[in-house]
Structures are given as C-alpha cells and as structure tokens.
C-alpha cells in the first residue's frame, strides 16, 4: 500500500499537448476515480503512473519516491486493462501466477496465493482453461485476479468494466468495492460510467481538456459542482442550464432568459446586476405541478418513464429542460404544467462558467 503524488504533470505527444499540469495527491488506501469525456487524458495519466508512457514534465512519486524514470516492472503496481490483456497461450492459473513466477516466489506460496485469489473471485473451476474459453465476465475476473495475487502498492484500472453488459457491470462493481474494502489498497480507477464513479470513489477527479476541473467526494461534486463542466458532466439526466442575464431588483432578483422569459428567483445570488450568467438546476429539483408564487407555466414535450421514475421534457418558451419525478401522476401529462425552480437548489455560474 502506498500514497501516490502527482505534481505538475505535463504530457505532450510530439507537439500535441495532452495534459496541462495535473496536481493530485492520493492517500494510502484511497479509492480515486478519474472521470471525464473521451480524449481528456485519463488513460494517459493512468499509463504515466504505471510507467507505460514517458512523463514530459513534472514528477510522480509513489510512497514519496520519485518514479519518473523507473521501468513499469520496478514500480510495483498492478493494472487492469480495458481489453484485459490476458496471455492467450497461458491457462488461467498461469496467467494469475505469471508475476509471481517472474519474481521467483516459492512454489507453495504461489499455489496458496493463487488458490485464495481464485476462491475470492469464484474462478476455482476455470483454473486450467485458456482465456479464449472464458466469457467476458470471467476474463474480467481473471484480470482482477492477476492484479491482486501480487499485493502491489497500488491498483490501476482503465475502464475495466466497459466491455461487460449492464447487469454484470453492476455485479462486478459491487465486487470491486468489496475487494477494496478487504484489501484496502490504493486504487485509481478510470471510467465513463457515472454510477461507477459515484458508488466506488472515495474521491472523484473530474478532468476535461487535460486539466483537473474538480476533486472531491462524489456528493461534493454532485451537490456543489465547481463549474459548468462538472455540473453538466456529473449526474444523469444531466443538470438543466438556462443562459440569461441576472437582474437584481431589491430583495428578489429576476433572471431574464435569452428567449425573453423572466424567471422570478425569489432570492438573490452573488452576481452583479445585469451580468450574463448561467443558471443550473438538477432535473429532480424541478417541482412539477407547483402552486403559489414564483411558478411558471411550461409546455410538456415528452414523457419518458424509466421504471424507477419519470423524466419529463419541458419547454419554457424556446428553452428546453428536463424534470425528474417519482410521482406517477405525471405519466399521462400533456399540455401545460406549472413548474417551480426552488431557490436553494439553484446553481449560478458566472460568465467564465465558474460557480458563484
């Protein structure tokens, strides 16, 4: 187990910069999840920690020791690849014991470690098979097994579940979480999947364009996104955004949407009068069928039942937004509905996209 420090890391492929100064401290035993849109440099960062990509500038320390120039084999970390990268000509047992055999571990030790990992992952009946005779989920388990037999300083996962179907992904997600609770190993996990990020992470690192946008606990990022990117990226269905102008009129400010509609805010925000801004609200915070002051009439565009709840697509003049509700009364809704955007749940972002 070890801490990992990433200090001012830059990476360029030739003249193309990919990472622009990443700073991140990962504590011993922490489970950190990297999320971000495709191409933002998550895999690149992970591969640099593993030693598979050279560091252009900056420093990576594992347990306080600089590892920039260390070969992957000397870093004592394990990695689970998206493609699993199992050795096709070796049996499951050989795949799992490969790293131990390279280290000339005693035979009895190898046998006992591999057997206990196999039991933990439910691989016992498959130990003599070749990878090509396994299902996707079983291959995934073998890849996990290959990582855990070594008791490395840290685990790196690059979208390990993205080739599995939804049900299996859910199951493996829980198993990874359990494994982490058992082993307590420092882990860095790259994913596209919102739910994986939210459920697994001690801390989420949201990246965009080679820059870290926000680091924090899952709920911190959900409840208090630092900027427009994080607000829009975390959560599904995503946050609603309304562009417009903030108009302070005494105690109760208004928000003039670009389309001409004025939202009464029923409160104030830390924005200058007349400044351009973006207002955000999560779909589940939009109150449908509201009564009383500060309600507006919105047109119902589409109703999507998800089983668990209902996503309602609405239009406020030309501006489209969504609401999420558990109330099945809204299933057959059409025409107009009164909506309310409660002030405590509103997020304001200034012109630069920062939260205020």
């Amino acid at each position, binding site marked *: 187990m070890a801490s990992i420090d990433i200090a001012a890391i830059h990476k360029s492929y030739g003249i193309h910069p990919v990472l622009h100064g990443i700073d991140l401290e990962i504590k011993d035993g922490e489970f950190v999840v990297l999320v971000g849109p495709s191409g933002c440099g998550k895999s690149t960062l992970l591969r640099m920690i*593993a*030693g*598979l990509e050279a560091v252009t500038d900056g420093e990576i320390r594992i347990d306080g020791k600089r590892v920039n120039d260390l*070969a*992957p*084999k000397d870093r004592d*970390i*394990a*990695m689970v*690849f998206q*493609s699993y*990268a*199992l*050795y096709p*000509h*070796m049996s499951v047992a050989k795949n799992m014991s*490969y*790293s131990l055999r*390279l*280290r000339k571990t005693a035979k009895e030790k190898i046998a006992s470690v591999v057997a206990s990992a196999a039991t933990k992952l439910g691989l016992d009946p498959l130990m003599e098979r070749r990878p090509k005779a396994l299902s996707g989920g079983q291959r995934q388990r073998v890849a996990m097994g*290959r990582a855990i037999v*070594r008791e490395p300083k840290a685990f790196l996962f690059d979208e390990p579940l993205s080739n599995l179907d939804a049900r299996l992904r859910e199951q493996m997600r829980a198993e990874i979480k359990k494994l982490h609770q058992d082993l307590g190993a420092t882990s860095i996990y790259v994913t596209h999947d919102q739910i994986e990020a939210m459920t697994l992470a001690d801390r989420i690192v949201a990246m965009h364009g080679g820059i870290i946008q926000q680091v924090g606990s899952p709920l911190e990022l959900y409840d208090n996104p630092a900027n427009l990117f994080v607000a829009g990226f975390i959560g599904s269905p995503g946050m609603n955004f309304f562009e417009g102008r903030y108009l302070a009129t005494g105690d109760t400010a208004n928000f003039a949407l670009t389309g001409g509609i004025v939202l009464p805010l029923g409160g104030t925000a830390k924005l200058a009068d007349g400044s351009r801004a973006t207002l955000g609200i999560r779909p589940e915070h939009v109150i449908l069928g509201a009564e009383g002051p500060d309600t507006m009439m919105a047109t119902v565009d589409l109703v999507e039942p998800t089983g668990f709840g209902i996503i309602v697509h609405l239009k406020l003049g030309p501006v489209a937004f969504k609401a999420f509700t558990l109330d099945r009364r809204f299933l057959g809704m059409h025409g107009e509905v009164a909506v309310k955007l409660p002030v405590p749940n509103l997020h304001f972002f200034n012109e630069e996209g920062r939260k205020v």
Partner: protein
Amino acid sequence: MASLAARNGGSRRDQRPLKKRLADASAPYLYSAPALILIVTVMLVPLVLGISYAFRDIQLLNPFSGGFIGLDHFKTLSQDQNFYRALKNTLWWTGWSVLLQFVFGLILALLLDKPFYGRAIVQALVFLPWAVPSFLAGLNWAWLFNPVVGPIPHWLFALGLMSEPYNILSDPQLSMWGPIIANVWWGIPFFAITLLAALQAIPRDLYEAASIDGAGPVQRFISITLPFLAPTIAITVLLRTVWISNFADLIIVMTNGGPADRSQIVASYIFTQAFKRLDFGYASAIALVLLVLLITYSMLIVVLRQWLLSKD
C-alpha cells in the same frame, strides 16, 4: 406441400427414358471434363513421363538408348559415391541456409518492429534482395568472392582471416559456404517480412501487461513474442526447407557443383546429370529419390502439425 412435390418429382424421374437419364447423370462430368483433362495433361502426364524415364535408358547422345532397364539406374545410384556426397551436402546446405536466414530474418524483423525515423523506407529496402533474380544474385556473389574483381578476399586477408586473397569458391573445403552466404543474403527478406507481419499482429497491451507484471525485455520475448511467433516460424521454416533443398540456381551459377563435386547438392547433381552429361534416365532416377525424400519429410511435418494442433 414441399415434400409432396419432391415425392412427385422423384417418381417422375424413374419414368424418364434411359437416354435422358444417362444424359442427366453424365452432365456434371461433361461440364467439368475440359478442366479435368487440362489439369491431368498439365500436371500428371509430365510427372508420369518423368518417373518412367527413371526406369529407361535415355541418353540424348546415344541414338540406340531408350530401352526399358528396370531398376538398373537405382542399382548404380546405390553405389554412386557422388550421390551420397550430394545428399550430405544437401543436408549441410539446407540446414545452414535455413538456420542463418531464419536467425538474421528474426533479428531484422525485431529491429523493424520498433518505430524509428524512416522505418517505411528501410522496410522497403529490406525487400530488395528478394527482388533480385537468383542467377543474378549468384553471379554478383561469385564476383564478390573472386579476388581479381571482388573485394571480399582482400577484406578477409586484411583482417588476417586468410593467408592470401584467394577465391573460397575454388577451395574444396570452403566452396559450399559461398553459395550458402549468397543464399542467406537472398533469403533473409522472406523471413524478415513474414516474421514482421506476425510480430505486428501481437497486441501491444500484452507487452504492457507483462512489463507491469515484472517482465524484462528477455522475459517478454520468451513468454509473449515466441509463443505468438511459433506457428509462423514452424510454417515458414518447413516451407523454406523444402524449397531450399530443391534450390540449385545459386550453386550452378557460382560453383557449378565444383571443385570436384565438393559443393554438389542433389538438385544440382540432377541438373549436371541431365544437362551436362545428358543422361536423362539417370537424372530422373535421382530426382525420383529426392521426390520421395521430400514427400516423406512433408508428410512428417503434416503429421507433426496435426499432433500439435490436437494437443492444443
């Protein structure tokens, strides 16, 4: 419905006139006859004729030859010391040529597998020897070994490997090595290109996984590269073995089997018998023996391959 129709069709067929039934039955054979006749003429007739020569006395310069002589050629052959030497030389020639071509081809393929500036051009250049006609390659190397026009003897002399610059092609002890070296030069591209193609088909993430698992370059080569290359290596080595043991061009051009038949392989010995001594009958007998040997070898390989496949 369908089965009813089929039954009706079946009963009706039995009632067709005999002539029509014959015509229907022979139609497929008539259609394929032209192709079959062509194949038989082109492939089998020369083979059978060639084999029949082995049992006849055919000498181009002797107008009274041509009679059937049974196994006489084979009796002579079993006592022909030159033939045994040629057989030994064939092993020597094939073994070293294949081994060296393979080793250098593999090294070249491994080098070309790493990205570097100008790799595409180098890959194209590597192909060059393969594109040179074999007799041209032979002539070229013969000149290179010739102290009068070529530099190699002088270089070897300068390095102290030779007491004086002489032609190794005329040294009975060394003459075999001249064609072997030319053959290695000529055949490296074949191995380099096929092995390179196989190398590039190995998924890169396996190497990454192995290096994270703690494997150094040598261990990665042994536990990933070799298992992936094994089928390609097996097939190419086997094919080249058959091909090279039959490949007399370089020897004919460079040493003509000499001096004193010291660099004669079976294939070049056949050539010498047939076209120098014009004894077609004897040459055919030798060729038949070579054919049997190579077929035996090929069958062994096929069996070995089946066994390897079934083991997996």
